[in-house]
């Protein structure tokens, strides 16, 4: 027998936190989805760098509401993190409340973003900028909606008492995905709202 292999240690069974297959799977999913956003932003900058149109067509973007929205989204990530911490400390009601708050903040983001869309004077077929703006923010919106469904499921599962301080891999994994959705918004926000101020 290979002496390097210890056979007398107790090992966790099943989906245990970052040792679970699911955690690794979502990390890989994030890599590939991150690449997708990378290619989206590449397309944006590639076309922006060669355009002869007004960019963006309405002039420099107003940063107030998108800025508030960014803060909302990042705050919701903090509450997802807090929800997981509460499970680790066996404070299940706090975990539940924290997750609920994260979900609500996410919904607020969606509502504000929909409002942002509605006040644009163009749509995705009007001009090249519109095509890019609505495709990129649309892709992100889709990810937020998927993320919100995940948060809702986590909320339900926590409420059903599926998890305790020993077993809560789903919260770690689902939470990681939500953090990704929020992180990627920073890149979208920087590209679409901040970089126009640079030129």
């Amino acid at each position, binding site marked *: 027998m290979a002496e390097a*292999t210890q056979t007398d*240690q107790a*090992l966790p069974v099943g989906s245990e936190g970052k040792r679970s297959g699911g955690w690794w*799977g979502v990390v890989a999913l994030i890599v*590939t989805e991150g690449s997708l956003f990378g290619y989206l932003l590449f397309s944006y900058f590639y076309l922006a760098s060669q355009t002869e149109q007004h960019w963006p067509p309405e002039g420099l973007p107003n940063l107030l509401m998108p800025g508030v929205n960014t803060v909302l989204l990042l705050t919701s990530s903090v509450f997802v993190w807090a929800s997981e911490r509460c499970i680790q400390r066996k404070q299940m009601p706090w975990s539940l409340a924290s997750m609920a708050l994260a979900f609500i903040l996410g919904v607020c983001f969606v509502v504000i973003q929909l409002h942002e869309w509605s006040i644009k004077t163009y749509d995705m077929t009007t001009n090249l900028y519109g*095509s890019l703006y609505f495709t990129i923010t649309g892709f992100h919106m889709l990810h937020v909606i998927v993320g919100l469904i995940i948060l809702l499921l986590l909320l339900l599962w926590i409420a059903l*008492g599926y998890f305790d301080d020993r077993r809560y891999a789903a919260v770690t994994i689902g939470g990681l995905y939500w953090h990704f959705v929020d992180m990627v918004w920073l890149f979208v926000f920087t590209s679409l709202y901040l970089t126009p101020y640079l030129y």
Partner: protein
Amino acid sequence: MTDVVQSSPDLKLSRIPEVGTSPIGSTAEIRLSELWESAPGWRGWLSTVDHKEIGLRYLVTAFIFLLMGGVEALIMRLQLARPDQTLLTPEQYNQLFTMHGVTMIFLYSLPVLSGFSNYLWPLMLGSRDMAFPRLNALSYWIFLFAGIFLYASFPLGEAPNAGWFNYVPFAGLEYNTGPNIDVYALGMVLLGISTTVGAINFIVTLFRMRAPGMSIDRVPILVWGTLTASVANIFAVPSVSLAFFLLWLDRQIGTHFFDVVNGGKPLLWQHLFWMFGHPWVYAVVLPAMGIVSDALPTFCRRPLVGYSAVALSTMATMLLGFGVWIHHMFAAGLPTLALSFFGAASMVISIPSAVAVFSWIATIWLGRPVFNTPFLFFAGFVILFVIGGLSGVMTAAVPLDFQLNETYFIVAHLHYVLLGINVFPVIGGIYYWFPKFFGRMMNETLGKWSFWVMFIGFNLGFFPMHLAGLLGMPRRIYTYAPHMGWSTVNMVTSVGSFVFAAGILIFLVNFFMSLKRGAFASPNPWDAPTLEWATPSPPPAYNFAVIPFVASRHPLWEDRLDEGAGRSSLEQGYLLMEGRETIGTTPLDAKPDIILKMPDDSYTPFFLGLFSALAFTGLLLHWPGFTLLMALACSLSLMVWMWPRKDLVQRVPDSKQDKGAAHG
């Protein structure tokens, strides 16, 4: 046995894995079979998550696509055999060469390698399944449905017709009004899902599912190849999926990404396509090179020369492969600086490729080769790789590429590379692992015939294409005039292609005859070194009765090589039979880390795949309501799939209420 466990909640959350033996016929072994075998009949067929079953399905499906793409090629060769032929109309010819490319590149070359890897990885790594068995099934179903989707418009005469790299503006709505390109665009996005989830499965499997002791420097080269390809795929596939999605938006919604009049750029398509396309080229050859690196040494009766060098060169090839995409666009009018850089980078790739070639040659040179069929295919591959590589270095030179761009020289190069590095190792690999797959040997005489006929036919068919290209014959023309001086080379090419097809036919005859009447195979008929040969032929549903402990790179050759510190333990190991279980190990050292609960068979992957395909069908046919319904069905399937289960210990066990507090 499960009842014993349920009585103690501690054992549910962590336990010391039992070590023991479980010889065939023992109660333990019978229990394992019951746990892992799929239900008989159509239920098991639809719900199985057994990686061996899925691997074989991948191989068979991909091979059927190879035959379809081959028939398309033969029809084109009939048309081109002589000048001024009228067998095909130009539009039919366009659809044929497009579908030939799409089929061979997307529906055959990677899926067939996924088939090998799906079947072989857990066996080579000493595991009982892949990391995500259900995801594995999903990956196959979506591949199958995407293949059917891409072919659905073919019988209607509306197949994709803008070439496999589908350049805009020709692929845009203005010049291509039918459903042809929409089928291609949506089909590729669908297929991309299959490729991506398959790649994620391979990556996590490599890092988590190896037998204890199989540290990262002890995995077979095929595993390195498929790992490298999979990592590349998760970075590269989003690019092409996005490109096709943007094209579909342009065509159906009216966006302007590639629309020149409104500021869109056709070159964006080329960038997005080739940023994916070039890494993909390596994704479809590196695992095949891995097949050779693992199987060739068996027939040279010695370990591969330069294991680490080959493993590193595999990864180096891919890393460089991300920085060469512009060599597909040399003639697109890009700045000279970019051309020089990408030309140089393309030439640098010959260094890691040469490392691999010299290591194969050295393995043959220093070994005692046994000249049977698989060896012939692998040795033939080395020759074809060198020829294909050489024409690759030639076209990496920008001035020469200006001359050769869009001629038959390129067609010759890419066929030498793709058939030489993919098809020959694949056929050789089937000869090699056939005994493991089906428990019988393939016929050696027919095998040698199939190799020589294929090898001669291939060179007769494709070598003259170099000449046709140098004589200035452009690719993708449906016919040519008699006085162009291309008549002889084209006739020779057509004859060669039919000889090659005859070789494939001999292989198929051999395959089916051997399936019925081949000699029974022992567990290790070739006396090979790697773990898959430690299992019976064919392997039982659970793969390994006990999870082995691995002490070296060649567990079955340890007695004569004496390379490891100790001896691998194949008879005695982890029993792990309280439900479907296998061991999870640490990513690099492969120390036991966790007892993984593996899912039972499930219909969910089939239905998720089916609903996804139907959602894409809805998009194609402009049925928004139906598409929405199917998207909803997909979400519901995913929820059923992801719902935390007690039997996988994703939730806290039942007895938590009475014992929970004591565990803090």
